[in-house]
């Protein structure tokens, strides 16, 4: 409002000067009506629209899951599960036969084994055998000590009978031998 207009307004009579209060009333009513319209719009219009949209989406999701037949779903899940489990089983698949070449490489010609026991879980190999003498037995121990596949070697017992040495060894193998 320009200064000239304001000036004119104050130059009017008292009835005309009261016009601003009615404009304020009109403004107040407009604010109230706007608030009420917003409320009704949200409550009756937008909220119902959103509810119906959510219901439609729910229905679409339900229909979507029905597009693949149950039997196909089950067959596929079974196959997927088989593949996933098979991969894990093959990852942990062991090769215990690797101990045989290891024994062949590291066994003295004058030694033979009459008992071999392998526990894969503990990586423990028990060997019972006969050496022709303590000197040969000592060479056999040295061969196992040097073998890269052996983690730990323990002589459980050794006994000389008629010049031959009967012995029993506990060997802890390195995990790499089974890979």
């Amino acid at each position, binding site marked *: 409002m320009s200064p000239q207009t304001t000036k004119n307004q104050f130059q009017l009579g008292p*009835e005309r000067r009261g016009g601003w209060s009615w404009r304020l009333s009109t403004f107040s009513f407009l604010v*109230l009506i706007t608030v009420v319209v917003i409320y009704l719009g949200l409550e009756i219009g937008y909220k119902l629209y959103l509810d119906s949209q959510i219901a439609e989406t729910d229905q679409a999701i339900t229909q979507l899951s029905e597009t693949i037949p149950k039997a196909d779903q089950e067959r*596929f899940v079974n196959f997927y599960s088989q593949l996933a489990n098979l991969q894990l089983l093959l990852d942990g*698949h062991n090769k215990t036969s690797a101990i045989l070449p290891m024994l062949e490489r590291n066994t003295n010609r004058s030694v033979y084994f009459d008992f071999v026991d392998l526990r*894969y879980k503990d990586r423990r190999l028990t060997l019972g055998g006969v050496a022709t003498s303590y000197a040969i037995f000592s060479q056999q121990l040295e061969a196992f000590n040097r073998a890269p596949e052996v983690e730990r070697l323990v002589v459980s017992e050794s006994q000389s009978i008629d010049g031959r040495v009967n012995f029993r060894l506990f060997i802890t193998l390195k995990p790499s031998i089974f890979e």
Partner: protein
Amino acid sequence: MKPAARRTISLLLSLGVLVLAVIVHVLFVRPVYSEVVELRSTLKAKSEFYQDQGQAITRVNDLIAQYQGAGQLQQTVSMSFPVSEDLSAIFNQLRTLAEVNNLSIKIFGVKPLALQSLSERNLVKNVGTLQLSLKVLGSYESFKGFLRGIETNIRVMDTQQITVEQMGKPGTNFYSYTLLINTYYQGEE
């Protein structure tokens, strides 16, 4: 009525209406607006889920189409890791391996172990384990071939324990071999 009084009444009325508008806003509009915001976020989440599901289902359909064309692969996988215990197949495979390697089977037993979960993925089912106990007789070379055969057998088998004992006179190439072997199948759940 005097103009001043009229103006006062009009002013009070305007204030009253404004206060009423504020009350309507606070008591009605704001709660409804909060509900609407919540509904909009729900709708958005569900729409995104629907789109994701749509894409996933398209991919699954493609996979199912590929899988239906991969019957041979499915057969091979089922031979390596069957969906049932299939004991007769196990025994036949071991018997054949023993025969091929000139070993004679003396003892064969099966002990089912508890189902176990190998994977944390939801769709992956539990794995059943059968512990086979086996005693075979024969030469060292035969046993080497037999053990390699078990390791490369179509059905996955893991040897857990091997005990070799001399049979007959010391130094002769004839032994008894006692084995514990784990083999697996897919559980129902």
